[in-house]
Structure formats: C-alpha cells, structure tokens
C-alpha cells in the first residue's frame, strides 16, 4: 500500500510495506510518534490520517492550494484488519481536509469485481462510488482475452448520467486509449 501526497511543491511518500516492517521488527516506538501503520496492531486508522494531516499542514507563510492525495490501494487496508467503517471514515476525513478545506484532489484505487464475494470490500467500493465526483472503472473485455485490446475503461462523472467507454491496450511504458471498434485488430 502506498500513499503519495503532493503538497507544498513536494512529494511526500508513505511506503506501507516498509512502515509495516519497521513497526513490527524495529525498536520500540517513541510514545509521541505512533507509526502510520499502527492499525495493523490496533485496528485504528487515526495514525494514518495524522500522517496525512501533518503533511498537509502549512509550513512557512505560503499555503499551498490544490494538494493531491493518491492512495494505492484501499483494499489492502481491509486485508490488514481495518473495518470497512474505519476505512470509509479515513477517506471521509481525507476528503474534508484535502478537497473541502484546501481545494485539492483525492484519487483512490480499489479492487473490485462483479462476482466478488468480499462483502466488506464491496461495501467500501459502493460507498466510495456514491461519494466520488468521477469514477474510472477498468475491466477486461466481456468477450475474453484479446491481444490488441486489453480491456475497457468506463468513465462516469457523478453529476451526469453519461457513461463513456474507452478501450485500451497496454504497452511497456504507456497505455493507448481508443473508442470501441477502433482497435488495431479491426482497422
């Protein structure tokens, strides 16, 4: 799990794996500085939010408008013991701090599938969809594997009832998008 925070002209990065290892195998934590991954032992995501809040705090005279918070990925938090309500609270707090107070953006990645049996995950995904301004849903083709079209992305903004579908093909370092029916296999 990784968290990127672009604020004050800098990129703040939290690597979940490394923090988790430091927490579990490192020396005793100082009492005033809980690790952001504290929830692995205590089921509480407050420390993680504190990390985000402290990174957003204005330093110096200039305040930064428009920070960007990227979370990759939220489903891992559920695997590590956080309850769905705690995860949704965390995202809600992040949204309030970043979007409402600082006019920034939050981008969150979750895993899902239509026949998933992970109810907690589906709960988080549905709730996030409800509160999001834009949903990008990447999925494979319903017709199966194809060499020229790796999948499709459904682009649905919240306010409008319009769902646009783009198909994509992944290359080594970038992804090409095209309208359905215009892939290299057809043309």
């Amino acid at each position: 799990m990784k968290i990127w925070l672009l604020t004050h002209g800098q990129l703040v990065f939290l690597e979940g794996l490394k923090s988790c290892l430091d927490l579990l195998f490192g020396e005793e934590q100082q009492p005033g500085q809980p690790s952001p991954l504290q929830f692995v032992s205590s089921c509480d995501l407050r420390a993680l939010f504190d990390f985000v809040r402290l990174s957003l705090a204005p330093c110096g005279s200039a305040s930064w408008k428009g920070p960007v918070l990227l979370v990759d990925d939220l489903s891992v938090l559920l695997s590590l013991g956080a309850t769905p309500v705690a995860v949704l609270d965390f995202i809600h707090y992040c949204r309030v701090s970043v979007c409402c107070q600082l006019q920034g953006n939050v981008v969150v990645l979750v895993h899902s599938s239509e026949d998933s049996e992970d109810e907690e995950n589906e709960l988080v995904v549905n709730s996030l969809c409800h509160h999001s301004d834009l949903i990008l849903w990447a999925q494979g083709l319903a017709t199966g594997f194809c060499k020229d079209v790796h999948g499709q992305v459904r682009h649905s903004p919240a306010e409008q009832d319009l769902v646009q579908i783009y198909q994509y093909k992944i290359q080594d370092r970038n992804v090409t998008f095209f309208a359905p029916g215009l892939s290299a296999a057809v043309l």
Partner: protein
Amino acid sequence: MAAAGGERGRTSFQRRPGAGPRPSALPGTRPSLRHGQLLLSSGLPSLDCVLGGGIAVGTLLLIEEDKYGLYSNLLFKYFLTEGIVCGHDLFVASAKEHPDNILKELPAPLLDDTYRKELGDEAAVVNSEDFQDSMKIAWRYQNLPKMETSPTTYTKFGHYYDISKKMPPELCQSVKRHSFYLHEELSFEPKMKAWNMNSGYARLLQSIQRIISQEGFDGSDPQKKQRNVLRIGIQSLGSILWGDDVCCSDTPEDPHSLTKFLYVLRGLLRKSLSACIITVPSHLVQNKAIMERVTNLSDMVVGLESFIGSERETNPLYKDYHGLVHVRQIPRLNSLICDVSDTKDLAFRLKRKLFTIEGHLESSTLLSTIKVIFSF
C-alpha cells in the same frame, strides 16, 4: 552472426560466435528482458515459461493446491530442488511434516545423457503411436529433437528432474538449509503480542526475518563477499495445522491473520535477495473473500486442478493430461505489462517422470502434433 549494420537501420551489435551468455553474479539467476529484475527458475521450465521467464527475486509465488495436494507438493519440491542444484540457501517451513523429511524426498536432477535418453524414449513413443501418417506432412520436423536445447549444456537456468529417483544426500547437504517446523518451535515471545496475529504465523515471520538479517540476504553485511539467494518454501499455509481456522469455518476467528502474514512476508521478500513459494489449500478455504484477498496480496498465483476423482478423468479431451493449470495472477514489475503466453488454457501432465505444462485445446488436431514437439 553479424548484423547488416546501418543499411536497414538495425543495430550493429554482433554476437561473438561460441561465447555463451555472460554469467550473472548470482548463481542460478538471469536478468529479465522485460523489466531487468533478476529471475530464478521455479524448477520446472514449462512453469517458468508460463510465469513470463521465471520467478523474480523478491516476489512471492502462491500455488493453490489441487484436491489431494499431490501435484502442488511436486511443484514445491521442484522449487527446492532447483535451489539445491543452483547452490541457493533454503528455508523450509511446514506444520505437516518435518522439513528434514521433505528435503530427503527431493527428486534427482536429470543429467545430460539420461536426459537425452528420456527424450529419445518420448519421441519414439510419440512416433510409434498414431502420428506416423501425419508426420509425412510435417517431414521437415521429424528429425528435430523434441526440445530446443538441453538445459544443462550452455544455460544454467532451468533444469529437469526425475521424480522416480531421490536426490543423492551429498548433493542435498551441499547447501545451507534452514528449517521451521511449527511443533518444535518455542512459545511465542511477548513482543509479538502486539502484532495481533496468529502465533504460528508470527513465529514464522520472526524466524524468516532473523535468517534474512543474520545471513545477510538484505545486504546488511557489506563484508560478505559472495551474495546468494534464499529460497523460502512454506507448505500448506492456512491449513488447520498452523492453528488457523480459515479452512474449517465460514467465519474464522481471526480472518486477517493470513492476509497480514502475506503482507509482511512480501515486505521481507522485497528488501532481500529471496523468493518464496507457498502452497495454500484454497479448495478448503470456506470464505471466498479471504481467497480473493490472498490472491491480491501475492505476486504470482497459480492454481492446480487435478482430474483425480472428477468426471474429467474419463473425458477424451483430457486423456493425455492429469489436470488443469489456472494462472490467476502475474505481476507487472517496473513495467505496465507482463510477459504471458497467449495460450490461456493450460494443462499439466506427469508422464515418464517428467512434469510438463502446455496448452491443451488443440491436442486433437494435426497442428498440435507440431506444437507438442516444440512445447517444453
């Protein structure tokens, strides 16, 4: 093999004839062409092909066990045996049987002469069955050997093993082996109480972390001249013998232990020169949500489905095969894309001491006879 130079815009790189590939610094590894990471062989060249070249150092391969665990156990042993042949260190963990017993039952490597003889037998059998007439059309391929190259000649990546013979003990003892047998471990230390995890898993993680830091697999010992790779094998993780009830209850007491274990293990693997194989009895896990999370937390996931006891055993489509292989996940390391074979319907068979994985759908057509010749 000189290239045409600048005329057609090709590179002027010339491969020196007779010089094999440059040996990499670590034994038994080679760099991947796609993402530049070091790759290890899984012990089964056809599985390496399916996984896009091999197992990258620092990643986790999860095998979903078949119904009786026969074939997944074979893959587990192939991984360990490959480690011995390449000179890697081993760490074997099990709650079912003592790791020393597992290490006594490893298959013997096939040497060059015996290997060619095996292939000769295979080719003879194939020719003598009903393919004689069809070979007339494909006469050009008739005299070519079944495999492209014998693996032990000039590449040191990927070997073949004979499961009917046991590995000689002196070869087995030539590498450093660490073992973790759950029922012989001491009771857990107080520090691990804060982990909020099943005690068996916590002890295993402690043991792995200790070996990695003590033996210098995480690069913490600059004095160590010869770096080596650690191959970790964990048998039947998630089964009741580990003290976890995910396999017997729909609502386990602690549904997060297994997923936390995999997360922390992946962290340990990422920061060390190691690779891990884990077999999980996924057909016993009642709560499918947990298996979905386990799949998302692993790098590579391969499921085995054997035909033993199912109606597919007598299905003519599968008459040459012993089971199906489902590739559930392949990682994308340092790249947006991964190398996967185009064949998505894979089956495995255990024939004449050799275990192979190949696409099965065209097995009844002429084209497949040519494909069988060139398959691994």
